[in-house]
Protein backbone atom coordinates (compact mmCIF):
# COMPACT_ATOMS: atom_id res chain seq x y z
CA UNK A 1 0.00 0.00 0.00
CA UNK A 2 2.79 2.31 0.91
CA UNK A 3 4.46 1.56 -2.38
CA UNK A 4 1.68 3.28 -4.24
CA UNK A 5 2.21 6.48 -2.43
CA UNK A 6 2.23 9.49 -4.62
CA UNK A 7 0.50 7.85 -7.54
CA UNK A 8 -2.37 9.77 -9.04
CA UNK A 9 -5.59 8.10 -7.99
CA UNK A 10 -8.70 7.56 -10.02
CA UNK A 11 -11.61 9.63 -8.94
CA UNK A 12 -14.98 8.15 -8.06
CA UNK A 13 -16.52 11.52 -8.69
CA UNK A 14 -19.07 11.63 -11.48
CA UNK A 15 -20.62 8.31 -10.57
CA UNK A 16 -23.33 7.99 -8.00
CA UNK A 17 -21.50 8.17 -4.71
CA UNK A 18 -21.28 5.02 -2.66
CA UNK A 19 -23.09 6.75 0.16
CA UNK A 20 -25.92 7.79 -2.13
CA UNK A 21 -26.06 4.25 -3.49
CA UNK A 22 -26.26 2.66 -0.05
CA UNK A 23 -28.82 5.24 1.00
CA UNK A 24 -30.88 4.47 -2.07
CA UNK A 25 -30.67 0.73 -1.37
CA UNK A 26 -31.97 1.29 2.14
CA UNK A 27 -34.73 3.40 0.70
CA UNK A 28 -35.64 0.67 -1.78
CA UNK A 29 -35.71 -1.99 0.95
CA UNK A 30 -37.90 0.27 3.05
CA UNK A 31 -40.28 0.97 0.19
CA UNK A 32 -40.57 -2.72 -0.69
CA UNK A 33 -41.11 -3.64 2.93
CA UNK A 34 -43.96 -1.18 3.21
CA UNK A 35 -45.66 -3.44 0.69
CA UNK A 36 -47.83 -0.63 -0.60
CA UNK A 37 -45.76 0.04 -3.65
CA UNK A 38 -47.63 -0.42 -6.93
CA UNK A 39 -46.49 -3.51 -8.73
CA UNK A 40 -45.01 -1.67 -11.64
CA UNK A 41 -42.97 0.45 -9.31
CA UNK A 42 -41.85 -2.54 -7.28
CA UNK A 43 -40.42 -4.07 -10.40
CA UNK A 44 -38.58 -0.87 -11.10
CA UNK A 45 -37.37 -0.74 -7.51
CA UNK A 46 -36.16 -4.31 -7.73
CA UNK A 47 -34.29 -3.67 -10.94
CA UNK A 48 -32.83 -0.46 -9.61
CA UNK A 49 -31.82 -2.14 -6.36
CA UNK A 50 -30.05 -4.97 -8.13
CA UNK A 51 -28.29 -2.53 -10.41
CA UNK A 52 -27.14 -0.32 -7.58
CA UNK A 53 -26.12 -3.34 -5.51
CA UNK A 54 -23.98 -4.68 -8.31
CA UNK A 55 -22.41 -1.27 -8.72
CA UNK A 56 -21.63 -1.15 -5.00
CA UNK A 57 -20.14 -4.64 -5.06
CA UNK A 58 -18.02 -3.65 -8.02
CA UNK A 59 -16.71 -0.64 -6.15
CA UNK A 60 -15.89 -2.75 -3.12
CA UNK A 61 -14.26 -5.45 -5.23
CA UNK A 62 -12.10 -3.01 -7.10
CA UNK A 63 -10.43 -1.84 -3.94
CA UNK A 64 -6.82 -0.97 -4.42
CA UNK A 65 -5.82 1.64 -1.93
CA UNK A 66 -4.53 4.76 -3.57
CA UNK A 67 -2.37 7.16 -1.67
CA UNK A 68 -1.01 10.36 -3.06
CA UNK A 69 0.99 13.03 -1.40
CA UNK A 70 0.07 16.61 -1.90
CA UNK A 71 2.39 19.45 -1.06
CA UNK A 72 0.62 22.15 0.87
CA UNK A 73 2.86 24.80 -0.60
CA UNK A 74 1.85 23.99 -4.17
CA UNK A 75 -1.42 23.81 -5.96
CA UNK A 76 -2.85 20.36 -6.43
CA UNK A 77 -1.15 18.54 -9.26
CA UNK A 78 1.78 20.92 -9.47
CA UNK A 79 4.02 19.02 -7.16
CA UNK A 80 5.66 16.90 -9.78
CA UNK A 81 3.31 13.92 -9.80
Amino acid at each position, binding site marked *: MQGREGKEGES*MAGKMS*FEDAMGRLEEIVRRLEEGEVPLEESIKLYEEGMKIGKMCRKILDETD*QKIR*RLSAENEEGKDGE
Partner: protein
Amino acid sequence: MKCRETPEFFSQDQDDIYSVSEITDAIRQNLESEFHDISVLGEIANFKAHSSGHIYFSLRDENNLIRAVVFRRRVTELSFGPENGDSVIAKGRISHYGGSGQTQLIVRNMVQAGRGKMELDFRRLVGKLMDEGLTSPQRKRSIPAYPHRIVVITSPTGAVIRDITETLGRRWPVAEIVHIPTKVQGDGAEISIVEAFNAANRIESADVVILARGGGSVEDLWTFNSEEVARAVASSAYPVITGVGHEVDKTVVDFVSDLCAATPTAAAELAAPSITEVRRVLSEHLSRIKKLYADSSENRLIMLEYMLRSSAFPALGHRLEQAELMLDDRRVRLDEWWERKREGGKNEISGVMVSLERALEKRARSCESQLSRKIGRFLYENPGKRVSAAKEALGRLLRITGIRTETSISMRRRDLSAKLRALDGLHPLRVLRRGYTYCTTVDDEIVLKSAKSVESGGGMVVNFYDGGLLCRVERERKGKVWQEK
Protein backbone atom coordinates in the same frame (compact mmCIF):
# COMPACT_ATOMS: atom_id res chain seq x y z
CA MET B 1 -35.13 52.32 81.60
CA LYS B 2 -32.46 49.80 80.66
CA CYS B 3 -33.47 49.84 77.22
CA ARG B 4 -32.30 53.03 75.62
CA GLU B 5 -32.25 51.90 72.06
CA THR B 6 -34.22 53.90 69.58
CA PRO B 7 -37.42 52.40 68.27
CA GLU B 8 -35.96 52.62 64.70
CA PHE B 9 -33.15 50.27 65.61
CA PHE B 10 -35.55 47.62 66.84
CA SER B 11 -38.02 48.11 64.11
CA GLN B 12 -36.33 45.25 62.18
CA ASP B 13 -37.77 41.78 62.51
CA GLN B 14 -36.01 39.43 64.88
CA ASP B 15 -35.35 37.12 61.93
CA ASP B 16 -33.04 39.65 60.25
CA ILE B 17 -30.50 39.59 63.03
CA TYR B 18 -27.64 37.10 62.40
CA SER B 19 -25.66 35.38 65.03
CA VAL B 20 -21.93 35.18 64.35
CA SER B 21 -22.27 31.58 63.40
CA GLU B 22 -25.18 32.37 61.15
CA ILE B 23 -23.33 35.08 59.27
CA THR B 24 -20.18 32.98 59.14
CA ASP B 25 -22.17 30.13 57.65
CA ALA B 26 -23.78 32.50 55.17
CA ILE B 27 -20.39 33.85 54.09
CA ARG B 28 -19.02 30.32 53.79
CA GLN B 29 -21.96 29.14 51.75
CA ASN B 30 -21.86 32.14 49.45
CA LEU B 31 -18.10 31.99 48.91
CA GLU B 32 -17.97 28.27 48.50
CA SER B 33 -20.83 28.11 46.03
CA GLU B 34 -19.57 31.08 44.04
CA PHE B 35 -15.89 29.98 43.88
CA HIS B 36 -16.07 26.21 43.90
CA ASP B 37 -13.94 25.77 40.79
CA ILE B 38 -11.44 28.53 40.10
CA SER B 39 -7.90 29.01 38.92
CA VAL B 40 -5.74 31.61 40.60
CA LEU B 41 -2.46 32.98 39.29
CA GLY B 42 0.01 34.05 41.97
CA GLU B 43 3.37 33.70 43.57
CA ILE B 44 4.01 31.26 46.39
CA ALA B 45 4.91 32.73 49.75
CA ASN B 46 5.01 31.43 53.34
CA PHE B 47 5.48 27.91 52.04
CA LYS B 48 5.25 25.28 54.76
CA ALA B 49 5.17 21.51 54.30
CA HIS B 50 3.36 20.22 57.40
CA SER B 51 4.27 16.91 59.03
CA SER B 52 0.76 15.73 58.27
CA GLY B 53 1.73 15.84 54.56
CA HIS B 54 -0.41 18.89 53.75
CA ILE B 55 1.23 21.94 52.20
CA TYR B 56 0.33 25.39 53.43
CA PHE B 57 1.30 28.59 51.64
CA SER B 58 0.03 31.95 50.48
CA LEU B 59 -0.58 33.09 46.94
CA ARG B 60 0.22 36.71 46.44
CA ASP B 61 0.57 39.35 43.80
CA GLU B 62 1.64 42.99 44.06
CA ASN B 63 -1.11 44.04 46.48
CA ASN B 64 -2.87 41.05 48.04
CA LEU B 65 -2.54 37.55 49.21
CA ILE B 66 -4.75 34.60 49.93
CA ARG B 67 -4.00 31.60 52.03
CA ALA B 68 -3.86 28.26 50.25
CA VAL B 69 -3.56 24.58 51.14
CA VAL B 70 -2.77 21.42 49.20
CA PHE B 71 -3.93 18.37 51.07
CA ARG B 72 -1.67 15.34 51.27
CA ARG B 73 -3.59 13.28 48.77
CA ARG B 74 -3.19 16.04 46.14
CA VAL B 75 0.45 16.76 46.94
CA THR B 76 1.57 13.48 45.43
CA GLU B 77 -0.19 14.41 42.19
CA LEU B 78 1.68 17.69 41.70
CA SER B 79 3.95 17.70 38.68
CA PHE B 80 6.57 19.80 40.49
CA GLY B 81 7.88 20.62 43.96
CA PRO B 82 6.60 24.06 44.82
CA GLU B 83 8.87 26.56 46.49
CA ASN B 84 8.58 30.11 47.72
CA GLY B 85 8.73 32.53 44.83
CA ASP B 86 7.31 30.11 42.29
CA SER B 87 4.79 31.65 40.01
CA VAL B 88 1.94 29.18 39.78
CA ILE B 89 -1.61 28.69 38.67
CA ALA B 90 -3.53 27.02 41.43
CA LYS B 91 -6.79 25.33 40.65
CA GLY B 92 -9.32 24.58 43.35
CA ARG B 93 -12.09 26.04 45.47
CA ILE B 94 -12.51 28.78 48.09
CA SER B 95 -13.20 27.64 51.60
CA HIS B 96 -14.17 29.87 54.54
CA TYR B 97 -13.25 28.41 57.93
CA GLY B 98 -15.38 30.01 60.61
CA GLY B 99 -13.22 28.91 63.55
CA SER B 100 -10.38 31.17 62.50
CA GLY B 101 -12.43 33.46 60.33
CA GLN B 102 -10.06 32.69 57.51
CA THR B 103 -10.76 32.38 53.84
CA GLN B 104 -8.41 30.07 51.90
CA LEU B 105 -7.96 28.33 48.57
CA ILE B 106 -8.17 24.54 48.72
CA VAL B 107 -5.86 23.62 45.83
CA ARG B 108 -6.81 20.62 43.76
CA ASN B 109 -4.04 20.99 41.18
CA MET B 110 -1.28 23.41 40.54
CA VAL B 111 1.04 24.08 37.63
CA GLN B 112 4.06 26.34 37.25
CA ALA B 113 3.31 29.73 35.83
CA GLY B 114 4.83 29.08 32.40
CA ARG B 115 2.41 26.24 31.94
CA GLY B 116 -0.11 28.12 33.90
CA LYS B 117 0.08 30.85 31.32
CA MET B 118 -0.42 28.30 28.59
CA GLU B 119 -3.35 26.87 30.45
CA LEU B 120 -4.86 30.30 30.77
CA ASP B 121 -4.25 31.02 27.13
CA PHE B 122 -5.82 27.68 26.30
CA ARG B 123 -8.89 28.48 28.35
CA ARG B 124 -9.17 31.98 27.04
CA LEU B 125 -8.93 30.75 23.42
CA VAL B 126 -11.46 28.01 23.98
CA GLY B 127 -13.72 30.53 25.66
CA LYS B 128 -13.34 32.92 22.76
CA LEU B 129 -14.05 30.29 20.16
CA MET B 130 -16.96 29.11 22.24
CA ASP B 131 -18.35 32.64 22.36
CA GLU B 132 -18.11 32.76 18.58
CA GLY B 133 -20.11 29.57 18.42
CA LEU B 134 -17.29 27.67 16.75
CA THR B 135 -17.48 24.85 19.30
CA SER B 136 -21.23 24.55 19.11
CA PRO B 137 -22.57 21.01 18.72
CA GLN B 138 -24.97 22.31 16.05
CA ARG B 139 -22.01 23.36 13.99
CA LYS B 140 -20.47 19.92 13.88
CA ARG B 141 -20.87 18.19 10.56
CA SER B 142 -21.44 14.48 10.24
CA ILE B 143 -18.69 12.39 8.73
CA PRO B 144 -19.73 10.76 5.43
CA ALA B 145 -20.42 7.09 6.03
CA TYR B 146 -18.59 5.88 2.92
CA PRO B 147 -15.85 8.37 2.10
CA HIS B 148 -14.11 8.06 -1.21
CA ARG B 149 -11.42 10.66 -0.62
CA ILE B 150 -9.79 11.20 2.74
CA VAL B 151 -7.35 14.02 3.30
CA VAL B 152 -4.73 13.41 5.96
CA ILE B 153 -2.86 16.39 7.37
CA THR B 154 0.10 15.23 9.40
CA SER B 155 3.83 14.82 9.43
CA PRO B 156 5.40 12.96 6.51
CA THR B 157 7.70 11.22 8.98
CA GLY B 158 6.95 9.09 11.97
CA ALA B 159 4.41 6.40 12.74
CA VAL B 160 1.29 8.51 12.46
CA ILE B 161 0.89 8.58 8.67
CA ARG B 162 1.79 4.87 8.53
CA ASP B 163 -0.74 3.97 11.22
CA ILE B 164 -3.44 5.99 9.50
CA THR B 165 -2.83 4.56 6.00
CA GLU B 166 -2.66 1.04 7.38
CA THR B 167 -5.85 1.50 9.33
CA LEU B 168 -7.66 2.99 6.36
CA GLY B 169 -6.21 0.33 4.04
CA ARG B 170 -7.50 -2.40 6.30
CA ARG B 171 -10.91 -0.90 6.98
CA TRP B 172 -11.78 0.96 3.82
CA PRO B 173 -9.35 0.55 0.92
CA VAL B 174 -12.10 1.96 -1.28
CA ALA B 175 -11.07 5.47 -0.37
CA GLU B 176 -8.27 7.42 -1.87
CA ILE B 177 -5.93 8.97 0.67
CA VAL B 178 -4.52 12.40 -0.01
CA HIS B 179 -1.71 13.07 2.38
CA ILE B 180 -0.75 16.70 2.88
CA PRO B 181 2.54 16.63 4.77
CA THR B 182 3.07 19.36 7.35
CA LYS B 183 5.28 20.31 10.23
CA VAL B 184 3.47 19.36 13.42
CA GLN B 185 5.64 21.13 16.00
CA GLY B 186 8.12 23.94 16.38
CA ASP B 187 8.57 27.11 14.37
CA GLY B 188 6.46 27.28 11.22
CA ALA B 189 4.24 24.38 12.25
CA GLU B 190 1.17 26.58 12.64
CA ILE B 191 1.46 28.21 9.23
CA SER B 192 2.27 24.82 7.70
CA ILE B 193 -0.96 23.36 9.03
CA VAL B 194 -2.98 26.41 8.01
CA GLU B 195 -1.62 26.13 4.48
CA ALA B 196 -2.36 22.43 4.49
CA PHE B 197 -6.00 23.25 5.24
CA ASN B 198 -6.01 25.81 2.46
CA ALA B 199 -4.72 23.11 0.10
CA ALA B 200 -7.29 20.64 1.41
CA ASN B 201 -10.08 23.11 0.74
CA ARG B 202 -9.02 23.25 -2.88
CA ILE B 203 -9.16 19.48 -3.32
CA GLU B 204 -12.16 18.47 -5.33
CA SER B 205 -14.81 16.42 -3.59
CA ALA B 206 -13.00 15.19 -0.54
CA ASP B 207 -15.16 13.69 2.18
CA VAL B 208 -13.21 14.20 5.36
CA VAL B 209 -9.96 15.65 6.69
CA ILE B 210 -7.94 13.96 9.40
CA LEU B 211 -5.68 16.27 11.39
CA ALA B 212 -3.31 14.12 13.39
CA ARG B 213 -0.24 14.12 15.49
CA GLY B 214 1.36 11.56 17.75
CA GLY B 215 1.76 11.91 21.49
CA GLY B 216 4.16 14.39 23.05
CA SER B 217 4.62 16.96 25.78
CA VAL B 218 2.23 19.87 26.22
CA GLU B 219 4.77 22.08 24.50
CA ASP B 220 5.05 19.58 21.63
CA LEU B 221 1.30 19.67 21.10
CA TRP B 222 1.05 23.43 21.54
CA THR B 223 0.75 24.05 17.81
CA PHE B 224 -2.73 22.56 18.03
CA ASN B 225 -3.72 25.11 20.64
CA SER B 226 -2.99 28.03 18.37
CA GLU B 227 -5.81 30.26 17.27
CA GLU B 228 -4.74 30.20 13.63
CA VAL B 229 -4.78 26.41 13.49
CA ALA B 230 -8.06 26.28 15.37
CA ARG B 231 -9.65 28.71 12.93
CA ALA B 232 -8.28 26.76 9.98
CA VAL B 233 -9.94 23.65 11.39
CA ALA B 234 -13.20 25.49 12.09
CA SER B 235 -13.36 26.91 8.58
CA SER B 236 -12.41 23.71 6.76
CA ALA B 237 -14.47 23.03 3.67
CA TYR B 238 -14.69 19.39 4.68
CA PRO B 239 -15.50 17.81 8.02
CA VAL B 240 -12.44 17.47 10.23
CA ILE B 241 -11.56 14.64 12.56
CA THR B 242 -8.80 15.49 15.02
CA GLY B 243 -6.54 12.86 16.49
CA VAL B 244 -3.84 14.71 18.39
CA GLY B 245 -1.64 13.19 21.08
CA HIS B 246 -2.71 10.48 23.46
CA GLU B 247 -6.06 9.78 25.05
CA VAL B 248 -5.55 12.27 27.91
CA ASP B 249 -4.46 15.15 25.73
CA LYS B 250 -7.03 17.72 24.81
CA THR B 251 -6.12 20.50 22.40
CA VAL B 252 -8.07 23.49 21.13
CA VAL B 253 -8.54 21.93 17.71
CA ASP B 254 -10.47 19.14 19.43
CA PHE B 255 -13.08 21.71 20.47
CA VAL B 256 -13.64 23.11 17.00
CA SER B 257 -13.26 19.94 14.92
CA ASP B 258 -16.33 18.07 13.76
CA LEU B 259 -15.21 14.90 15.49
CA CYS B 260 -12.55 14.40 18.11
CA ALA B 261 -10.66 11.14 18.32
CA ALA B 262 -8.37 10.08 21.15
CA THR B 263 -5.48 9.10 18.87
CA PRO B 264 -4.46 9.30 15.20
CA THR B 265 -5.42 5.64 14.68
CA ALA B 266 -8.77 6.25 16.32
CA ALA B 267 -9.28 9.19 13.96
CA ALA B 268 -8.67 6.90 10.98
CA GLU B 269 -11.18 4.40 12.35
CA LEU B 270 -13.79 7.12 12.75
CA ALA B 271 -13.11 8.38 9.22
CA ALA B 272 -14.06 5.20 7.41
CA PRO B 273 -16.39 2.22 7.81
CA SER B 274 -15.25 -1.37 7.91
CA ILE B 275 -15.46 -2.85 4.42
CA THR B 276 -16.44 -6.21 5.93
CA GLU B 277 -19.40 -4.63 7.64
CA VAL B 278 -20.35 -2.70 4.52
CA ARG B 279 -20.28 -5.90 2.45
CA ARG B 280 -22.51 -7.55 5.01
CA VAL B 281 -24.99 -4.67 4.98
CA LEU B 282 -24.95 -4.59 1.20
CA SER B 283 -25.61 -8.33 0.95
CA GLU B 284 -28.40 -7.97 3.45
CA HIS B 285 -30.01 -5.19 1.45
CA LEU B 286 -29.79 -7.18 -1.75
CA SER B 287 -31.12 -10.39 -0.27
CA ARG B 288 -33.99 -8.47 1.30
CA ILE B 289 -34.81 -6.83 -1.98
CA LYS B 290 -34.70 -10.22 -3.70
CA LYS B 291 -36.84 -11.80 -1.02
CA LEU B 292 -39.37 -9.00 -0.98
CA TYR B 293 -39.52 -9.20 -4.73
CA ALA B 294 -39.85 -12.98 -4.72
CA ASP B 295 -42.56 -12.75 -2.07
CA SER B 296 -44.76 -11.14 -4.64
CA SER B 297 -44.17 -14.03 -7.04
CA GLU B 298 -47.84 -14.90 -7.01
CA ASN B 299 -48.24 -11.76 -8.98
CA ARG B 300 -45.78 -12.83 -11.62
CA LEU B 301 -48.34 -13.11 -14.36
CA ILE B 302 -49.75 -9.75 -13.54
CA MET B 303 -46.19 -8.50 -13.48
CA LEU B 304 -45.63 -9.80 -16.95
CA GLU B 305 -48.65 -7.94 -18.15
CA TYR B 306 -47.50 -4.89 -16.30
CA MET B 307 -44.13 -5.17 -17.91
CA LEU B 308 -45.67 -5.45 -21.31
CA ARG B 309 -48.00 -2.56 -20.69
CA SER B 310 -45.78 -0.47 -18.47
CA SER B 311 -44.37 2.79 -19.60
CA ALA B 312 -40.99 1.08 -19.35
CA PHE B 313 -41.92 -0.85 -22.47
CA PRO B 314 -44.10 1.60 -24.36
CA ALA B 315 -43.36 0.08 -27.74
CA LEU B 316 -44.28 -3.41 -26.57
CA GLY B 317 -47.49 -2.26 -25.00
CA HIS B 318 -48.45 -0.35 -28.10
CA ARG B 319 -47.64 -3.27 -30.34
CA LEU B 320 -49.65 -5.58 -28.14
CA GLU B 321 -52.67 -3.33 -28.42
CA GLN B 322 -52.21 -3.02 -32.17
CA ALA B 323 -51.91 -6.77 -32.50
CA GLU B 324 -55.11 -7.26 -30.50
CA LEU B 325 -56.96 -4.74 -32.60
CA MET B 326 -55.73 -6.34 -35.80
CA LEU B 327 -56.70 -9.78 -34.53
CA ASP B 328 -60.20 -8.59 -33.65
CA ASP B 329 -60.56 -6.99 -37.05
CA ARG B 330 -59.51 -10.16 -38.82
CA ARG B 331 -61.79 -12.25 -36.70
CA VAL B 332 -64.75 -10.09 -37.67
CA ARG B 333 -63.82 -10.18 -41.31
CA LEU B 334 -63.42 -13.94 -41.22
CA ASP B 335 -66.85 -14.34 -39.64
CA GLU B 336 -68.41 -12.13 -42.27
CA TRP B 337 -66.68 -14.02 -45.05
CA TRP B 338 -67.84 -17.33 -43.63
CA GLU B 339 -71.40 -16.08 -43.35
CA ARG B 340 -71.42 -14.96 -46.96
CA LYS B 341 -69.97 -18.24 -48.10
CA ARG B 342 -72.52 -20.22 -46.21
CA GLU B 343 -75.38 -18.26 -47.69
CA GLY B 344 -74.11 -18.61 -51.21
CA GLY B 345 -72.93 -22.11 -50.60
CA LYS B 346 -76.07 -24.01 -51.48
CA ASN B 347 -76.57 -22.25 -54.80
CA GLU B 348 -73.01 -22.59 -55.61
CA ILE B 349 -72.91 -26.29 -54.74
CA SER B 350 -76.07 -27.16 -56.65
CA GLY B 351 -74.73 -25.22 -59.59
CA VAL B 352 -71.61 -27.24 -59.44
CA MET B 353 -73.59 -30.45 -59.16
CA VAL B 354 -75.64 -29.63 -62.19
CA SER B 355 -72.59 -28.82 -64.16
CA LEU B 356 -70.96 -31.98 -62.97
CA GLU B 357 -74.00 -34.02 -63.80
CA ARG B 358 -74.15 -32.54 -67.24
CA ALA B 359 -70.54 -33.12 -67.79
CA LEU B 360 -70.83 -36.70 -66.63
CA GLU B 361 -73.88 -37.30 -68.78
CA LYS B 362 -72.19 -35.82 -71.76
CA ARG B 363 -69.15 -37.85 -71.08
CA ALA B 364 -71.19 -40.99 -70.67
CA ARG B 365 -73.02 -40.44 -73.92
CA SER B 366 -69.83 -39.77 -75.65
CA CYS B 367 -68.34 -42.96 -74.26
CA GLU B 368 -71.42 -44.95 -75.22
CA SER B 369 -71.46 -43.79 -78.80
CA GLN B 370 -67.75 -44.25 -79.03
CA LEU B 371 -68.09 -47.77 -77.69
CA SER B 372 -70.93 -48.57 -80.04
CA ARG B 373 -68.97 -47.33 -82.93
CA LYS B 374 -65.98 -49.32 -81.88
CA ILE B 375 -68.01 -52.53 -81.40
CA GLY B 376 -69.78 -52.07 -84.68
CA ARG B 377 -66.55 -51.45 -86.48
CA PHE B 378 -65.03 -54.42 -84.76
CA LEU B 379 -67.79 -56.80 -85.75
CA TYR B 380 -67.93 -55.43 -89.19
CA GLU B 381 -64.25 -55.67 -89.67
CA ASN B 382 -63.63 -59.07 -87.97
CA PRO B 383 -66.66 -61.46 -88.07
CA GLY B 384 -64.53 -64.61 -88.29
CA LYS B 385 -62.48 -63.66 -85.39
CA ARG B 386 -65.54 -62.92 -83.51
CA VAL B 387 -67.03 -66.39 -84.27
CA SER B 388 -63.91 -68.33 -83.51
CA ALA B 389 -63.60 -66.35 -80.37
CA ALA B 390 -67.13 -67.35 -79.51
CA LYS B 391 -66.36 -70.95 -80.33
CA GLU B 392 -63.35 -70.90 -78.23
CA ALA B 393 -65.37 -69.49 -75.48
CA LEU B 394 -68.02 -72.11 -75.97
CA GLY B 395 -65.45 -74.84 -76.21
CA ARG B 396 -64.01 -73.75 -72.97
CA LEU B 397 -67.44 -73.77 -71.53
CA LEU B 398 -68.22 -77.20 -72.92
CA ARG B 399 -65.00 -78.65 -71.73
CA ILE B 400 -65.75 -77.49 -68.37
CA THR B 401 -69.34 -78.81 -68.40
CA GLY B 402 -68.25 -81.97 -70.27
CA ILE B 403 -65.84 -82.90 -67.61
CA ARG B 404 -68.58 -82.47 -65.15
CA THR B 405 -71.09 -84.50 -67.26
CA GLU B 406 -68.70 -87.35 -67.89
CA THR B 407 -67.88 -87.58 -64.33
CA SER B 408 -71.56 -87.77 -63.60
CA ILE B 409 -72.32 -90.35 -66.34
CA SER B 410 -69.57 -92.73 -65.46
CA MET B 411 -70.74 -92.72 -61.97
CA ARG B 412 -74.26 -93.56 -63.08
CA ARG B 413 -73.01 -96.27 -65.42
CA ARG B 414 -71.19 -97.99 -62.68
CA ASP B 415 -74.29 -97.80 -60.65
CA LEU B 416 -76.36 -99.15 -63.52
CA SER B 417 -73.97 -102.02 -64.25
CA ALA B 418 -74.24 -103.13 -60.73
CA LYS B 419 -78.00 -103.02 -60.96
CA LEU B 420 -78.03 -104.83 -64.33
CA ARG B 421 -75.87 -107.57 -63.00
CA ALA B 422 -78.26 -107.97 -60.26
CA LEU B 423 -81.07 -108.02 -62.75
CA ASP B 424 -79.27 -110.33 -65.15
CA GLY B 425 -80.20 -113.47 -63.35
CA LEU B 426 -83.78 -112.40 -63.33
CA HIS B 427 -83.93 -111.68 -67.06
CA PRO B 428 -86.56 -114.02 -68.55
CA LEU B 429 -84.62 -114.61 -71.77
CA ARG B 430 -81.60 -115.84 -69.89
CA VAL B 431 -83.29 -119.14 -69.09
CA LEU B 432 -83.78 -119.73 -72.82
CA ARG B 433 -80.13 -120.78 -72.92
CA ARG B 434 -80.91 -123.47 -70.54
CA GLY B 435 -83.59 -124.96 -72.92
CA TYR B 436 -86.57 -122.95 -72.00
CA THR B 437 -88.72 -121.48 -74.69
CA TYR B 438 -91.72 -119.24 -74.76
CA CYS B 439 -94.55 -119.00 -77.18
CA THR B 440 -96.18 -116.01 -78.53
CA THR B 441 -98.89 -115.28 -80.90
CA VAL B 442 -97.95 -115.20 -84.50
CA ASP B 443 -97.71 -111.45 -84.41
CA ASP B 444 -95.31 -111.71 -81.37
CA GLU B 445 -97.54 -109.48 -79.44
CA ILE B 446 -98.80 -111.76 -76.76
CA VAL B 447 -96.91 -114.40 -74.77
CA LEU B 448 -99.02 -117.55 -74.62
CA LYS B 449 -99.54 -118.77 -71.15
CA SER B 450 -102.01 -121.64 -71.59
CA ALA B 451 -102.41 -124.76 -73.80
CA LYS B 452 -105.82 -123.56 -74.46
CA SER B 453 -104.61 -120.32 -76.02
CA VAL B 454 -104.34 -121.82 -79.48
CA GLU B 455 -106.91 -123.91 -81.13
CA SER B 456 -106.11 -126.94 -83.20
CA GLY B 457 -104.95 -125.84 -86.55
CA GLY B 458 -103.91 -122.40 -85.16
CA GLY B 459 -100.41 -120.99 -85.47
CA MET B 460 -97.99 -119.84 -82.87
CA VAL B 461 -94.37 -118.90 -82.53
CA VAL B 462 -92.06 -120.97 -80.31
CA ASN B 463 -89.19 -118.69 -79.25
CA PHE B 464 -85.76 -120.20 -78.59
CA TYR B 465 -82.78 -118.27 -77.33
CA ASP B 466 -81.48 -118.06 -80.87
CA GLY B 467 -84.68 -117.64 -82.91
CA GLY B 468 -88.32 -118.66 -83.28
CA LEU B 469 -90.20 -121.39 -84.99
CA LEU B 470 -93.56 -120.67 -86.62
CA CYS B 471 -95.66 -123.74 -85.77
CA ARG B 472 -99.12 -125.19 -86.46
CA VAL B 473 -101.02 -126.90 -83.65
CA GLU B 474 -102.33 -130.30 -84.54
CA ARG B 475 -104.12 -130.98 -81.37
CA GLU B 476 -104.28 -130.47 -77.75
CA ARG B 477 -102.51 -132.90 -75.51
CA LYS B 478 -104.07 -133.36 -72.21
CA GLY B 479 -102.30 -133.44 -68.93
CA LYS B 480 -100.11 -130.98 -67.20
CA VAL B 481 -96.38 -130.84 -67.74
CA TRP B 482 -95.61 -129.08 -64.47
CA GLN B 483 -97.62 -129.62 -61.35
CA GLU B 484 -97.58 -126.68 -58.94
CA LYS B 485 -97.06 -127.84 -55.39
